[in-house]
C-alpha cells in the first residue's frame, strides 16, 4: 500500500536505485565474459599494439576456426562433455536416492552418515590428490575419463545429497501418503507424485554438479596425462607455452567452452522456477 502512496519523484528514485544496483551487479558479473569475447575476436597482431580498448579496430574469427581445426580442442570438449554429463547424471541419481531417504526415513546410523558426509567436505582437495592417485593407479583409472567421473562423483555426491534432501523436505509428506492411500506403493508414489514435484531440485542439482565438473582443473590435471583423456580446462593450459601465451586462441577456446554449459542451463532453466508445490497443503 505504502508503495503506491509514494510521490512520483520518490518512485523514480526507488526505480533508479533498484535498477542501478542490478546494473552494477550485471556489469561486474558479465564484464569478464565480454572481455573474453573481445580478446577472442582481436587479431593477434593487434593484441599488444593497440593498447587497452573496449573493442579492437579490426575483428576476426580466425582464433575460433584455428581452435576448432588446428588444435585438439574438439576432443577436449567431447571429453569434458562426457565427464561432466556422466558425473551430473550419476551424482544426481545417487543424491536423489540418498536425499529422499534422509528426508523421509528414520533409521539407525543416519546421523552418523550425515556427519561423515559433512566431514568429506572439509578437506582441501589438494590434500587428497596423493591418496586418490594411489587408489586409482592399481585400478587402472588414472588417465581415463572413467576415473575422473568416479572422483568427481565422489566429491559431488555429499553436497548434492544435502541439496536434494532440502528439496524433498520441501514437499509435504502428506502428498505421498495420500498417494499411498489412493493405491500407490511407496515407490509408485515417489515416481508419480514426488518426482514431478522435485524436478526443480533435480535440475538445480544437475546444473550444480555439471558446472563443478565442467570447470574442474586440479584433478583433471593430476590424474590425466594422455591427450585422449584431457578435459578442456587442462586443454586451456596447452596455450601457455614456455615462451608465450596464445591469448587469442585461449580466449576463443574458453568462449566455446561456455556454450555447452549455456545450452545445459537453457535446457534445465524452466525447471529451476520454484513454486511447483503451491496449493498442495493448506497454510
Amino acid at each position: 500500500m505504502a508503495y503506491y502512496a509514494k510521490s512520483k519523484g520518490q518512485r523514480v528514485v526507488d526505480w533508479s536505485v533498484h535498477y542501478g544496483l542490478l546494473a552494477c551487479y550485471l556489469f561486474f558479473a558479465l564484464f569478464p565474459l565480454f572481455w573474453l569475447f573481445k580478446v577472442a575476436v582481436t587479431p593477434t597482431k593487434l593484441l599488444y599494439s593497440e593498447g587497452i580498448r573496449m573493442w579492437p579496430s579490426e575483428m576476426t574469427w580466425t582464433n575460433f576456426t584455428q581452435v576448432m581445426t588446428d588444435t585438439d580442442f574438439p576432443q577436449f570438449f567431447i571429453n569434458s562433455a562426457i565427464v561432466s554429463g556422466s558425473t551430473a547424471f550419476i551424482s544426481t541419481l545417487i543424491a536423489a536416492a540418498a536425499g529422499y531417504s534422509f528426508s523421509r526415513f528414520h533409521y539407525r546410523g543416519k546421523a552418523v552418515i550425515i556427519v561423515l558426509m559433512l566431514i568429506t567436505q572439509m578437506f582441501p582437495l589438494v590434500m587428497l590428490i596423493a591418496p586418490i592417485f594411489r587408489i586409482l593407479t592399481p585400478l587402472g583409472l588414472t588417465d581415463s575419463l572413467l576415473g575422473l567421473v568416479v572422483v568427481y562423483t565422489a566429491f559431488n555426491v555429499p553436497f548434492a545429497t544435502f541439496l536434494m534432501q532440502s528439496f524433498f523436505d520441501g514437499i509435504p509428506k502428506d502428498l505421498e501418503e495420500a498417494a499411498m492411500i489412493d493405491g500407490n506403493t511407496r515407490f509408485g508414489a515417489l515416481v508419480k507424485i514426488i518426482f514431478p514435484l522435485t524436478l526443480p531440485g533435480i535440475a538445480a542439482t544437475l546444473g550444480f554438479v555439471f558446472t563443478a565438473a565442467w570447470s574442474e582443473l586440479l584433478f583433471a590435471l593430476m590424474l590425466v596425462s594422455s591427450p585422449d583423456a584431457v578435459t578442456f580446462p587442462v586443454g586451456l593450459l596447452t596455450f601457455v607455452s614456455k615462451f608465450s601465451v596464445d591469448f587469442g586462441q585461449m580466449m576463443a577456446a574458453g568462449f566455446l567452452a561456455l556454450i555447452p554449459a549455456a545450452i545445459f542451463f537453457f535446457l534445465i532453466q524452466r525447471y529451476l522456477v520454484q513454486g511447483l508445490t503451491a496449493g498442495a497443503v493448506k497454510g
Partner: protein
Amino acid sequence: MASIQITEATKSYGNTAVLHGIDLNIQDGEFIVLVGPSGCGKSTLLRMIAGLEEVTSGSISINERIINDLPPRDRDIAMVFQSYALYPHMSVEENISYAMTLRKSPKEKIASAVNGVSSILGLNGLLERRPKALSGGQRQRVAMGRAIVRDPQAFLFDEPLSNLDARLREQMRSEIRKLHRKLNATSIYVTHDQIEAMTMADRIVAMHDGYIQQVGTPLEIYDKPANVFVASFIGSPAMNFIKGTASASGDGYHLQTDQGHQIILPESSGLKDRMDVILGVRPEHLMIVEEGPASLPATVDLIEPMGLSTLVHVRVGQDSLKIFTLDRPDIAEGTQVHVSYIKEKLHMFDARTEMRLESPV
C-alpha cells in the same frame, strides 16, 4: 463394508507416548466422530488406521483380520487429510480420479464418478484448475471429492470441513450424512465442531491426552458425561462448574460451595459426607428467578444477545456462570439477580478423581 476393531493400541514416538491403550470397536456402517482438544492424538489414531503410522503395540483389525502390517494401499480405506494433500501438478479432475485411474477403472466409469462427485461438492466449473488456483474451501472440497469418489471399506475424515464458511459447512454436513446413508460405509470423522459431532455421529469418541475418555451416542455423552473433561468439552456454551463440599442434611446431601452458598444435590450412591465435589450445570438448566428458597444471589456481568437466544454471564461469589435462555431478559449489566437451577439436571463429579457420580435420573 467393514467393522474396525482397535485393541489396546498404543503409539509412541521414541519415548513420547502419544496414544495410551486405545480400545474401540466400530460396527460395520457406523459413523464415529472423534473429538478432543488439539494434540490429543486424533490424527495419529486416524493415520494408524490408514496404515500411515506404525502401531507401537496392540492391534488394529478390519473385519476381525489384524492389519497392523498391511500397507495403506491394501487396506482399501479413503482418507481426507487435515492438510488436504492435493497433488499440485494435477488438475482437480485428475486429483479426484487418481485413485480410480490407479485401479484401472474404465474411462466412462471414472468420468461419471467424477461428474457425480463434482456436482455434490459444487466443483463443476473448477475441474480443469490446478489446486494452487483454488481457495481454501475449494481445496478442501477437492480433498473431500478425492475420498468420496471411491467406494472404500471405510472413510477417514480429518477435519474435512474446517475451512468452509458456515453455510457451506452446513450444506456439506448434510451431504456427508446423505452420502453415508447411501453408501453406508464405516466412517471415522475428526472434528472440532460441536454441531458436527452432535448431528453426524452415531457414536462420539471423546479423547484427551491420548486416552479415550468416553464413547457413547451424542445424547449419552451430552446427558451423562463420564468425567469433568467430557462435561466441559462437549456442549456449547460450555457447562458451568461449581466447587464445594458435600454435606449430609436430612436424608440427602447438599453442596456447601466454596463461595458459601448451599445447593441441594440430587441423590447419588457415590456421595459421602465431607467429600469434595465438582458440580456441573449446563447453561440451559440455570435460570434467572425471583428470590426464593433455592436461589443464589448473583451479579450480571455481561449479556450476549444471539438472536434466537440470550447468554447471560453472571457471577455468584467468585464463580462465573453462564445462563442460556430463549427469553430476552430485561435486565442490565451490573444488576443483582437470583439464579436457580434444575436439581435433576445437575451433574456431580468426585473432585479427587473428576469422575461422574451417578445419579438415578
